[in-house]
């Protein structure tokens, strides 16, 4: 009896629990919501964001409180409780997927272009096309030229192939342009002004690289973060070499989707990269490098590992790159200069590519999507306090306009810079996270905002370098074209991209020619590519 009870209880409890749990998980929710067409002010908005919004360690909580205070004054009376959730930046999209799998889905989520297409294609996002057409932001007339282009890229397919706008980007996506170090140019006998505002041909560009290589002690001139970028637009770190070659599927002139990687343009591009590596122009060790590796090579004070050309983000990064070079001395005693020339796209390239901006989306789990759109998304570019908060952070924590003086915390034994401001003068405050630096922006990069703040007091605080570079990039870029998401593309993209990256590396490192590489690519993943093309052209 005792043994029976003992065994029966132990095994029974364990197995029932385990087996019962195995069978769990069939609950379905109806995603359709209707609030009767009346736009009411939401009481709570659950927001899932990445680190592009000021982090908690950098006064994020103060920003949330400040934004809540500002939203309280908008429209109907009542406070909106903003519940921000910020998963770790590196695993943001894993956390987004996990959150969508759970029961506590967010009302608002920030998604990059790939994930935006995916989540809309799976009917997880609320169609805001109509809300956008009737929005205050659209009616305001403050949208910048080109805003239409940015927003039109946000019209993507749902699961039935109907195009609609499922998210809103309050800023442009930005992109990469090529920076050339002036001191390297001078050493090579090239006057920086001679390449400024000039669209070189690839031959001229390559000739410049060769001269720079000959005049330097470095193993290379260009050290990119890998031979191909991990995300769209993939070719943006070596644009002069890839030119118009397409890494992935795209719609050709006839309106049909084709595989850009199999085309002659890619074979030529790979051969150019291979020649660049062979000539010591491109870093042989770039395969598998991260962006920080590439930045460190650009900042390197060791003449044998320093790079002279870097294709990187435009706008604020122009200023950051300059700041990180100015005042440094190389190990051979020569001074480094932060003077960089952002060159025009070469003629074969035509334009730099502007990526599709991350979009703020309302999920189908949101009970009051119209309310969330009106009070949360439509106010982001209101041209007033709320836009100021999204651009610069919380007043009193990240920026202020009162008369005050402060000194930044010193670094490397040096005293920090001192600042003094008059009453009414906009100025950034020291970063709560790193008091050696001033805050530079919040979520919306001011030069990239889709609508300007009239008489923006913060505009004066932006550096001339960043402003000029943002304007320059805006003149020489074209929008990336989004790729619709299909089941076949999603299922096979990891394998196809893996093979593409392998081929790029092999050709770049001289292990095969471009034509041989593409032939290997076709023979190994050709079937998968055909399957994807069939689904895209359905």
């Amino acid at each position: 009896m005792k043994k029976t009870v003992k065994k029966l209880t132990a095994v029974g409890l364990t197995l029932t629990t385990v087996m019962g749990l195995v069978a769990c998980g069939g609950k379905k929710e109806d995603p359709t919501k209707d609030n009767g067409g009346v736009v009411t002010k939401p009481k709570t908005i659950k927001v899932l964001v990445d680190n592009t919004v000021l982090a908690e360690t950098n006064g994020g909580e103060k920003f949330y409180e400040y934004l809540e205070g500002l939203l309280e004054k908008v429209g109907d009376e009542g406070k909106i409780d903003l519940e921000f959730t910020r998963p770790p930046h590196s695993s943001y999209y894993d956390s987004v997927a996990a959150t969508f799998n759970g029961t506590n889905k967010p009302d608002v989520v920030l998604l990059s272009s790939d994930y935006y297409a995916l989540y809309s294609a799976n009917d997880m996002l609320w169609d805001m096309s109509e809300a956008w057409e009737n929005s205050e932001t659209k009616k305001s007339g403050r949208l910048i030229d080109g805003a239409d282009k940015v927003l039109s890229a946000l019209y993507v397919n749902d699961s039935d192939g109907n195009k609609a706008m499922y998210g809103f980007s309050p800023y442009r996506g930005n992109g990469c342009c090529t920076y050339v170090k002036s001191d390297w140019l001078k050493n090579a006998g090239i006057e920086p002004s001679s390449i400024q505002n000039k669209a070189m041909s690839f031959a001229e560009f390559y000739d410049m690289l060769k001269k720079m290589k000959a005049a330097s002690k470095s193993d290379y001139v260009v050290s990119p973060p890998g031979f191909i970028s991990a995300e769209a637009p993939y070719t943006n770190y070596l644009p002069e070499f890839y030119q118009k070659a397409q890494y992935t599927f795209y719609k050709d002139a006839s309106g049909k989707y084709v595989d850009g990687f199999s085309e002659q343009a890619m074979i030529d591009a790979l051969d150019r990269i291979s020649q660049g590596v062979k000539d010591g122009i491109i870093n042989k060790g770039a395969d598998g490098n991260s962006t920080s590796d590439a930045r460190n090579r650009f900042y390197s004070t060791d003449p044998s590992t320093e790079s002279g050309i870097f294709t990187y983000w435009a706008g604020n990064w122009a200023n950051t790159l300059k700041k990180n070079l100015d005042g440094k001395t190389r190990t051979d005693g020569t001074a480094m200069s932060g003077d960089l020339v952002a060159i025009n796209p070469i003629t074969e390239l035509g334009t730099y590519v502007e990526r599709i901006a991350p979009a703020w989306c309302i999920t189908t789990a949101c009970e009051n999507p119209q309310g969330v759109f009106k009070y949360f998304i439509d106010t982001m570019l209101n041209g007033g306090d709320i836009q100021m908060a999204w651009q610069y952070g919380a007043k009193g924590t990240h920026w202020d306009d009162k008369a005050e003086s402060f000194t930044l915390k010193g670094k490397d034994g040096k005293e920090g810079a001192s600042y003094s401001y008059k009453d009414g003068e906009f100025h950034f405050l020291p970063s709560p996270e790193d008091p050696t630096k001033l805050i530079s922006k919040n979520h919306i990069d001011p030069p990239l905002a889709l609508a300007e703040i009239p008489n923006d007091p913060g505009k004066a605080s932006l550096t001339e370098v960043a402003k000029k570079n943002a304007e320059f990039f805006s003149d020489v870029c074209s929008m990336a074209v989004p790729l619709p998401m299909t089941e076949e593309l999603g299922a096979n993209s990891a394998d196809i991209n893996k093979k593409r990256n392998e081929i790029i590396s092999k050709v770049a490192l001289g292990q095969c020619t471009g034509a041989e590489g593409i032939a290997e690519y076709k023979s190994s993943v050709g079937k998968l590519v055909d399957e994807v093309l069939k689904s895209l052209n359905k």
Partner: protein
Amino acid sequence: MQCKSCNTELPKKAKVCPKCGKIVNEKSSGNLKVIAVFGLVIAMIASMLPFVQNTSEIKDAYSFMNIDMPIMWYLFILAIVVSACLLVARKDMLSIISTLAAAAVFVVSFVGFDFRHYSKRNKFTIVRLMDLIQNGSGEDSYAIGFGVIVMAIGIIMAVAGVFIDVMKYFKKDLKVDARYLSNSINKSIWTKIWYHKGFYIMFVPVVIFIVLFYYWPMLGCRYAFSQFRIADPFYVGVKHFVQMFTSDMFFWNSFRNTLFLSIIKLVLNTGAAVIISLLLHEIVNIWFKKTVQTIIYLPHFMSWVVIASVFRMILDPNPSGVVNSLLLQWGVVDEPIMFLSDVKYWQGTFFVMNIWKDTGWGTILFLATLSGISPDLYEAAQIDGANRWKRLLYITLPALANTIITVFILNLAKVMNLFESVFVTSTPGTIEVSEVLQTYVYSKTFSTSMSDYGYSTAVGLFKSIVGMILVLGCNYLSKKVRGRGIV
């Protein structure tokens, strides 16, 4: 009459031994009916396999996982669990009833209940399995899936297995009173728990931790049979397994690489550790020996991320890289070698890095064994005229052999767990030789926006099954070689 357990003379009509507590005239409960238990496990697995299958579209399949009323699956599971409990409690005949009840639930579900046909996530239509088999759907025809066959096998085994006691053929009569085989006394389990309550309380957090972090995640293995993108997984039968075994060349490539890299690494690391141990054993100067030991142990404590970064710098393929600049200077090579980017060199470099990192640590066991060899043996051999080589060959190596085999077997069980070292050292160009199953699952899951957790789970499940077979195999080998298992 004497107690069968402690041989104490029992009073007349005693039901329980007053000394040890054993029940008098207790009937032998018999052995566990292993075949019946296996049958129940098979029936349980069969509940996730296709009952009805589209003859041309593998993912169009139906099982308990897409029944419209999941309560029937829960009932089936409950009946199986009850059967298992009854078997464990040695109420074998009663278990037949619950097993047949499970079979009845299966038949009723198959014949009388609606199933969901998913066209995509959250979009489904209702179908009847019998209608599908008889009339098909549109141009599609359907047939009985192999889940039904497996289910039938499982149920038959669970019922027939009750009458077959296979364990008796494996059990030996130990000819020892069972009381002396453990430190337990013939008291109830509750008395024992109360007696050792302190230990049980201390053990509770461990149990919770193990259940939460080891066993709970295992329940996700059911997703291997579903398409799972973003949310709301739905049943696709054995589509992932068919795809994995028939058309996924990356899977087979990574499986091959996993075995190759792990086994060669194991042989090289063990061999290097034996050689280093033998060399260290010969060192007489203790200070020097300890210094060398400390130096060679240190890399073991470094993270693979750090090691990869250090080797990347040392092996930089540019002319200014440490190794390449030396090779160029000495005229060994004309062009810098791409140690970590070229398929020709990656594997060799990987093995060298592994030897550098883990050989020192691996010497500990061998040095311990070597220090245990009696000096008398060496002395006797010397007297007999054996030189250093002969002593190594006939004394040291035979003494080490058992340890070498043990280390080899213990590590063989872990060959499928290759991830970190490969992940941080491989580059896109070396995928062909460097991708292993764990990095493959990682890239399938995290390198694309539309990862199918279902497929990754199927690959992971396969890896776990191979791992389990290796562990059981090694456990068997371990028992053979050293008389006890690996745990």
